[in-house]
């Protein structure tokens, strides 16, 4: 056999193959060991497959354990916290990992995905289950309990609710599937439209509209299109502040025609309408304004939060936060730190973007104070509470408008020492329920937040 003869080309070929294979293993080993190829969250990180794992601790912002693994079981500490947080927690990785809209999908290490299997104890016992690391949330367990009680006391079935800090983007409390369920925003979209209009043309702040019967027919490319104010009210000659306070539909439809659709849609994209936005700590169902429609009447109807205008409660809360925070939208965050054996490392996710001009945001904020002072929000007034109410009619499956409504209140405290905002959305309610009911719930929750802070 030629093979054993040294210096023969076949020996050299084999040596070369062995060397190349070894080199590729070595290069891989070096790159894997020094961690230079480690990257932050991505789809790859979200891949989870450990069949045997023990869930790490999920703690609230104060270190109270909310949820933890006991062996293979997961145990909630408090049933009321469970009832309010469960829809977005994502305990079942198989289901939650496909989207990033649950809490645990964004901190997969809790499932033991980062458990190092090269530890001696594991090498000796390869069948031991993977141990999850801990996570600390920005959510307040005490507030969560209060929210659950308040929602239960209110008697409404379908409640979505978000409380956050508009200066940091931290989510403090929530209820329901605020990430994925979308609703017509109704009149709560008006502050966003007003802020966008003022960003396009600051002079529109003095725009006056005469809310009279004859002025409710709006010209479109397919002929006149009629949009009434609620219950056929006529507000008379009305400025922007009063249009927000009393929620005049005609004013905003007319305003939309003033700015023109191209400029307006471009502004709205900054807020996240009709585009795709990713945040470091989660993704949610993006909001839409015009959607795929190009019809004038859909554009005008979207101006009063109907037609293709759809938004998640978290999306509405973030837009409200931007208005309260001088047009600066902070990245929403709900995970603050990752813990291993009691040592905590902060989880990055900070960042912000300007969605409208500072002047516009501050002007709109003042107008929203008028809502609780004299407008549609008088019944849930609270000092310094800038808010906006909204009612949207739900369309039935056939597309025609149904009896059921979605009612909203979104707003926050203008005092920057208490930078809290709250968004409440009650879905599938009868027309006897008004946005003021959502407002009262919102006010009660804000009081809870302030009480918790005072303690």
């Amino acid at each position: 056999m030629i093979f054993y003869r040294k210096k023969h080309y076949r020996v050299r070929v084999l040596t070369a193959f062995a060397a190349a294979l070894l080199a590729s293993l070595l290069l891989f080993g070096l790159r894997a060991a020094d961690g230079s190829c480690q990257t932050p969250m991505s789809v790859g990180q979200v891949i989870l497959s450990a069949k045997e794992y023990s869930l790490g601790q999920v703690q609230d912002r104060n270190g109270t354990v909310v949820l933890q693994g006991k062996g293979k079981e997961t145990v909630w500490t408090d049933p009321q916290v469970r009832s309010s947080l469960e829809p977005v927690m994502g305990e079942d990785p198989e289901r939650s990992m496909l989207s990033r809209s649950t809490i645990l999908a964004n901190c997969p290490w809790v499932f033991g995905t980062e458990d190092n299997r090269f530890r001696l104890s594991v090498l000796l016992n390869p069948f031991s289950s993977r141990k999850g690391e801990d996570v600390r949330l920005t959510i307040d367990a005490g507030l969560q309990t209060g929210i659950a009680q308040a929602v239960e006391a209110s008697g409404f079935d379908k409640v979505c609710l978000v409380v956050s800090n508009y200066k940091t983007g931290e989510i403090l409390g929530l209820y329901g599937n605020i990430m994925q369920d979308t609703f017509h925003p109704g009149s709560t979209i008006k502050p966003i439209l007003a802020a966008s209009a003022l960003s396009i043309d600051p002079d529109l702040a003095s725009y006056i509209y005469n809310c009279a019967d004859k002025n409710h027919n709006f010209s479109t490319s397919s002929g006149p299109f009629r949009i009434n104010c609620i219950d056929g009210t006529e507000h008379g000659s009305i400025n922007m502040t009063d249009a927000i306070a009393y929620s005049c539909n005609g004013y905003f439809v007319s305003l939309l025609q003033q700015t023109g659709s191209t400029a307006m849609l471009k502004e709205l994209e900054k807020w996240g309408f009709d585009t795709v936005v990713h945040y470091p700590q989660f993704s949610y169902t993006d909001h839409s304004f015009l959607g795929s429609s190009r019809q004038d009447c859909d554009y005008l109807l979207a101006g009063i939060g109907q037609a293709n205008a759809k938004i998640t409660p978290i999306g509405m809360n973030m837009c409200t936060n931007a208005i309260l925070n001088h047009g600066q939208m902070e990245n929403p965050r709900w995970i603050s730190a990752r813990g291993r054996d009691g040592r905590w490392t902060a989880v990055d996710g900070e960042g912000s973007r300007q969605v409208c001009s500072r002047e516009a945001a501050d002007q709109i904020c003042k107008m929203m104070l008028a809502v609780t002072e004299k407008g549609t929000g008088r019944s849930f007034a609270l000092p310094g509470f800038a808010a906006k109410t909204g009612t949207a009619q739900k369309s039935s499956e056939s597309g025609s408008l149904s009896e059921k409504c979605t009612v909203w209140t979104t707003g926050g405290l203008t005092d920057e020492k208490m930078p809290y905002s709250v968004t409440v959305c009650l879905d599938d309610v009868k027309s006897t329920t008004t946005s003021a009911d959502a407002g009262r719930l919102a006010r009660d929750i804000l009081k809870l937040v302030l009480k918790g802070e005072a303690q």
Partner: protein
Amino acid sequence: MSFPIYVIYSAGLFLWTISSIHYDSPLPAAQYGLGQLLILAALTIMFMADKGKKAIPGLVIAAVFCSLGLSIAYRFAGEKASIQLEDVYTGDLISMIVVFFIVYLLIRFTNIYRIKLINLLAGGGLLLAVYGARLTSALTGGSYLYFGGIMIFGWALLAFPFTAAFLISRREDSYVRGNVRSLPWNLMLMLLYVIILFAGCVLCNEFGLILIIGLTATVLFFIRCRNLLTKCFYTISCAGAAVLSAMKVPHVHDRMQIWLHPAAAAGSEDLAGKAESVLYLFRHLGQAGLWGRGIGSLPVSYYPTLNTDHVMVTLINDYSLILAGLVLALSLFFIRWLLTLPDGLCGYDRYLNLTTALLFGFLILVHTASNLGSFLTAGIGFPWISEGSSVNIMLTVLLAVHCGLLGKKAIS
């Protein structure tokens, strides 16, 4: 000795795989079992037929790879469990075994494979297949991959060794004028042939094939060519072409970026999706550990090529680092076995055998290195472990060629 070890290994793998994933239908398990028996039967026949037992070590290693392929196929069977045997690995296995015995007998007992016309037809046929694929087949994932229902990669694996061996083993005593020592005409012809082949591959966007054929042809050239200046010239022009394609062809450029800076590639928007599979092992080797995560743990929805181009990732993640290491060690033994040849065979046979061994070697090397992120990502499967019927059948032809040559009598 290797035979009983193989039986124990394949039975163990079978039980492990079957107990890891349960399907509602008994079909996948039945197909896996049937495939296992077929391999065993073929191995037994060769064990009895091969007097010198020279072919056995390599065949056992090939059987190890095939039974891993069966396990991988079972693991990814999912809902596509099919009654049509031609759609599943076991069906491929039947064709592989039949083809193996036919080719083995032809090579061992006849000399028809040395007939000039057949070799010329193989060479011409390959060019036809590559250019024909561009004209006839539909785009799949940005490339034209099929001709006559068979992947051009498979056509190339089959035809290239014969063509290369034919061209390179022509006698050198007649030269096209000029310096006879710097570039013999047989090498020149081969280079010309490879260049025409490459042009076709570029048209089809089949860069994996260019890589494998290019590497193989380069080694053949370096072994055959005796002039240093020509070697230098060849190296420089190859390096130049590589740099040019890395810079100009977006496809290659992307892969270059991923290879050099995988983490940065994951952060960039255009490359993120493509870098994922490379980065997977970097991120998750620690969690897979020595013992793996268990069969069936990586969801195929994320990386659709886990049973083909990225089968090494599956092996390390699911089947354990130990098994993957074993596979690589066996691969080296396999290449060594492929390179071994009895003394006294003619030049054509020797080059045919060398080309076969080089092809296997580069397939294994490029697949492994690109799965580990140590080399450009290339869409190349691991012989027999990856699914891919036409390529696996053609590889079996090459295996049979080597087995046949091992049994051939030396020309006196």
